């Protein structure tokens, strides 16, 4: 433990970004949360393009589905078709709980699917459990390893 983890949050709602930041702060983990607000920015960040030349490779991606410019499903497909990026665990965190979305994103190789609770306390709990599970229990791939 004690390793600094980098998370990329892809989220267009300012309020949800704020909530996620606060909830992660509560967990007291040593993590760096980077935020991008749309799908095009997310891909630029991951491919170190444009203003993101120095961007770190995230250990975990939290991806909303309904995004401007490029949809979350499309971002997910890009990540999972890219040999360099596909090993980064990508967790869907979205308001949708439609069966169709759930099925589609698992087929697109999302690592897991979580629905955003509407109540603040439950949202905080969910972020905490993401942190407990993904950043504590799971073995993540080593940083910057190109197969």
């Amino acid at each position: 433990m004690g390793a600094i983890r980098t998370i990329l949050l892809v989220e267009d709602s300012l309020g949800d970004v704020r909530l996620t930041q606060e909830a992660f702060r509560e967990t007291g983990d040593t993590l760096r949360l980077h935020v991008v607000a749309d799908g095009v920015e997310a891909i630029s960040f991951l491919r170190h393009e444009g203003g993101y030349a120095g961007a770190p490779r995230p250990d975990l991606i939290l991806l909303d589905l309904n995004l401007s410019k490029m949809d979350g499903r499309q971002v997910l497909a890009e990540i999972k078709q890219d040999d360099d990026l596909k090993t980064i665990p990508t967790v869907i965190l979205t308001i949708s709980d439609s069966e169709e979305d759930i099925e589609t994103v698992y087929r697109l190789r999302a690592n897991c699917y979580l629905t955003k609770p509407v109540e603040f306390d439950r949202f905080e709990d969910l972020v905490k459990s993401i942190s407990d599970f993904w950043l504590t229990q799971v073995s993540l791939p080593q940083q910057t390893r190109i197969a």
Partner: protein
Amino acid sequence: MQKVVLLVEDSPGDVRLTQEAFRNAGRSIDLRVAADGVEAMSFLRRQGIHAEVPRPDFILLDLNLPKMDGREVLAHIKEDNDLKAIPTVILTTSDAEADILTSYQLQANCYLSKPVQLEEFERLIESINDFWLSKVKLPQQEHG
């Protein structure tokens, strides 16, 4: 609704521990066990004696298995249009960087190392129960 979990594990001791840990976590699940990779694939494809088995909601897969290796089982699952949406979590004693990377490349949903201490093993099963079987949305049973 009771979730169906397929545990692919060749060690009877670890099967027993996993069963007990789920029971202690207070969840009633329908835990099915396949002891090797060939049996796991036959279960998932409902072949032979497995014609009537339910489709698992979730798979816990060991890597080191007789007959067919866990990596091969994982590759088969994730290449099969019918099976690839089922979340498949690696649960193995190996913590080798190469195994972790290979598993994610083969699209394992996540990778967990089996702790050697009993209490930690129980805690890990409890967190699988809390996270994957409670918080996570799993794909619906029997679509299409």
